[in-house]
C-alpha cells in the first residue's frame, strides 16, 4: 500500500471515529479488559493495553486512529500484564464467530489474484502465477451470497442458544463482523465462569461432534415416533430431521441400516452450527470492538438487533464513510456491490468512486488512492 493510500485511509477513519466515537462503548467493566490494536499496516498487534475510563479509551482512538481495535472477552485482575497467566483471569463472555468461508465457498467472479513477484493479476482464484509460477495472493471480496449463508447460520446459533442453553435474548449481542462473518457475544452471569473444558463441550454440542450415533440409529430403526421417544436437545433435533427426510416411521423401519445412517449423517450436516471452535474455546480471545472499522474491508462491525436479523443487509448497513467522489487507480477488481450500488469490474484504470467504495478497494489491496 502506498503512503498516499494509507494517509487517505487514516483521514477517512478519523472522520468516522470523530463523528461516531460515542458509539464505541466496550463491555463493562472497562478497567478489567485488555485491548489490542493494529496501528500501522504490516506491524504486529499492539496489545496488553488497558484503560481506566471510557474517556481515556476514546482519547487513545482519536489520537492514534488505529486500523483495527480489539477488546478481550475476558475480565482480568491485571489486564495490562504482558504475561498471560499473570493477568489473572476472572471470567469471560462466551464469544462465537461464524466465518462465511466455513458456510459457502467464494466464487471465481468474486475473487482476484495478484502476483507480487512479477506484478501480474487477474480475476478468479488462481493460486499459481501463470507467467512466473510463484504463489499468488488471493483477494476475496465480500460476497452477498456467502454472507447470507453465514446469516442463516447465525440464526441457527441464536436459536440453539435460546432453546437449549436458555440464553436470554437481552444477554445476546449479534454483530456483522465488518468483513466476512458474524459474531455473537453472550454475557449471561451463569455462563461467565464456564472453563475452557466446558466451552469445548459447548462447541462440540453446536458442531454436533462426538454424537452417540448408535443410540439414535437404534431408536430410528425401531421406528419409534417422536412422541414415543423422550429425546431432548440436539438429539431430538437430529431425530426429527431424519424422520422428516424419511417421510414416515414405516419407511425407516424398512430401510437398510446404512441408508438410515446416511440420512442421519446428512441431518447432522444440516443441523450443525458452523462456528469457529478455536475462538469459543479460547477464553483469552480478543474480539473485534463493536462499531469499530474492520480494516480488511473498511466496513464497520455493526450491531444487529435480533428482530432485524432476517432483513439485515450488511453491504448497505455497515458502511462507515460518505460518498464524495474519490479518484483511484485500480489494478484489478471484480464486479462488486456496496451501499446499494454496483461497481466494476475494473482493470488497470483510473476511476472515480464514492469514498466508501474507494476505501473498500484500498483495504482489499486492489487499488491505490490517486487524489480527489
Amino acid at each position, binding site marked *: 500500500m502506498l503512503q498516499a493510500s494509507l494517509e487517505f485511509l487514516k483521514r477517512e477513519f478519523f472522520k468516522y471515529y470523530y463523528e461516531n466515537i460515542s458509539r464505541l462503548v466496550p463491555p463493562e467493566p472497562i478497567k478489567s479488559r485488555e485491548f489490542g490494536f493494529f496501528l500501522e499496516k504490516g506491524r504486529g498487534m499492539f496489545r496488553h493495553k488497558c484503560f481506566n475510563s471510557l474517556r481515556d479509551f476514546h482519547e487513545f482512538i482519536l489520537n492514534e486512529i488505529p486500523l483495527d481495535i480489539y477488546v478481550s472477552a475476558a475480565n482480568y485482575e491485571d489486564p495490562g500484564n504482558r504475561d498471560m497467566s499473570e493477568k489473572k483471569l476472572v471470567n469471560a463472555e462466551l464469544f462465537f464467530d461464524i466465518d462465511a468461508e466455513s458456510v459457502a465457498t467464494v466464487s471465481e467472479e468474486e475473487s482476484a489474484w495478484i502476483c507480487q513477484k512479477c506484478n501480474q493479476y487477474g480475476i478468479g482464484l488462481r493460486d499459481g502465477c501463470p507467467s512466473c509460477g510463484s504463489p499468488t495472493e488471493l483477494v476475496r471480496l465480500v460476497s452477498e451470497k456467502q454472507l447470507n449463508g453465514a446469516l442463516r447460520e447465525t440464526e441457527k446459533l441464536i436459536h440453539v442458544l435460546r432453546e437449549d442453553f436458555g440464553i436470554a435474548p437481552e444477554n445476546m449481542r449479534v454483530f456483522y463482523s465488518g468483513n466476512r462473518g458474524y459474531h455473537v457475544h453472550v454475557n449471561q452471569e451463569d455462563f461467565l465462569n*464456564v472453563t475452557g473444558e466446558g466451552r469445548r463441550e459447548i462447541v*462440540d454440542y453446536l458442531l454436533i*461432534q462426538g454424537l452417540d450415533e448408535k443410540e439414535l440409529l437404534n431408536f430410528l430403526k425401531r421406528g419409534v415416533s417422536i412422541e414415543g421417544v423422550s429425546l431432548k436437545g440436539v438429539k431430538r433435533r437430529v431425530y426429527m430431521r431424519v424422520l422428516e427426510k424419511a417421510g414416515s416411521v414405516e419407511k425407516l423401519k424398512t430401510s437398510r441400516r446404512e441408508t438410515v445412517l446416511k440420512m442421519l449423517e446428512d441431518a447432522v450436516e444440516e443441523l450443525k452450527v458452523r462456528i469457529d471452535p478455536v475462538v469459543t474455546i479460547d477464553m483469552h480471545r480478543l474480539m473485534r470492538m463493536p462499531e469499530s472499522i474492520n480494516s480488511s474491508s473498511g466496513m464497520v462491525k455493526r450491531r444487529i438487533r435480533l428482530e432485524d436479523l432476517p432483513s439485515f443487509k450488511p453491504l448497505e448497513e455497515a458502511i462507515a464513510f460518505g460518498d464524495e467522489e474519490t479518484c483511484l487507480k485500480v489494478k484489478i477488481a471484480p464486479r462488486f456491490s456496496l451501499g446499494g450500488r454496483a461497481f466494476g469490474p475494473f482493470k488497470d484504470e483510473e476511476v472515480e468512486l464514492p469514498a466508501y467504495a474507494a476505501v473498500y478497494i484500498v483495504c482489499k489491496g486492489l487499488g491505490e488512492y490517486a487524489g480527489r
Partner: protein
Amino acid sequence: MMSENVLRAARYPFLPETREFVSRNIDLSLESLEKTGSEAALKRAVERVKNALIFKEVKVTALDELNYVREMLSFPIAIILVSMIMNEYVRRMYALGESRGAYRRMLNESDETLLYIGEKMGVGGVLDDENTIRVKIPTYLKLAYSFHAPHWKLVNRAVNNGYVSMGKTEYARLIQVEVNNYVYEKTLEPVPAGAVPDSFRRAVDEIVEVWGRLETGKASRVPLREREDTPPCIGRIIRRMENGENASHFERLVVATFMIARSRSIDEIIEFFSKQPDYKYSVTKYQVEHLAGIRGGGKKYSVPSCRTMLTNGLCYPDEYCKGIKHPLRYGEKNVAGEPRVP
C-alpha cells in the same frame, strides 16, 4: 435431640450444618481437642483415612451414625491428619474415599434428601418427575467434564432451556465430584505446625505405616525433586512401555492423547508404540489418528482428568500435582513443601 437431621449431618459430614454443629458445640482448637478426650473421634478419624487408602471408600455404618458427635468430629480431624501427612497421593485418595462413600449412601436417599445435599454442595437440581432431575448447564459442565464416557458429553445429553436432565444416579455422581473437590481443597489448607498435639502425630505415624504396607502410591513416596515436563502418572506409563511392558488399552489412550496434546507428530507417536509386544502398524496408525481427530468425525480426544486417572489406579502424584485437576496442568499451581514419606 437426635433427629433425622442430625443423622444426616453425621452421614454427610461435609455438609455446612455439620460444620456448624461442630463449631457450635465443640471447641475445635487443637489443644482443647487433646484435653476434651476426643480419643474416640481421633480413632474414628484414623479409620476414615485408612478406609480410604485400603478400600478406596470411607464407610459409615448405622452404628457410626448413632455415635453422631464422634462421627461429625472425626471428619475435620481426618482432614487435619491428611494435611499433616503432606502427600498428594494421600490427599487425593482420601478425597476420593470420602466422596465414594458419600455417593453410595446418597443412592439410598429420598429425592428430597438427595436434592438437599446437592443444593448445599452447590449442585442445585430441580426434580422434574420421579426419575429426572435437571441441573443448570454451567453446573453440569463444571462437574461432568472429568468423566470420560461418551454419554456424559453435553452433545449426548437431554439439554433444554438452560438445563441438563438426568437420572438420580447420575445426579449423585455429579454431587460426588463436588464432594471430592471440597474434601481435597480442605486437605490443602496448612496445619499450624506448633499446635499439633502428640496424639495426632502418633495417629499420622499409624496411617503412614499402613500406607507403607500398601502397593499403591509407591512412586509418590519419593521426596521433592526437580519438576519434569511430564506428570509422574504419565511418565511412569511411558517408562514402563519403553521397557517393553505391555500397557493396557486405557494406558495407551492416556499416553497417545498426552503426546497429541504436546503436539508430537502422528509418526513419532506410532514409532513410540512400536515397542509394544503386540504392535501392528496399521492398527496403531488408525487408533492414533482416531484419537487425534483425523478420523471418526474430527472429534479430538482429550487427556483424561486426574480424577479419571486416580479411579483407574494410575495416579502417582508428586508435590507438583498439588491443586491440579488435569495432568496437562502439572506444575502450574505448585506450592512446595516437604512431603511425608513412609
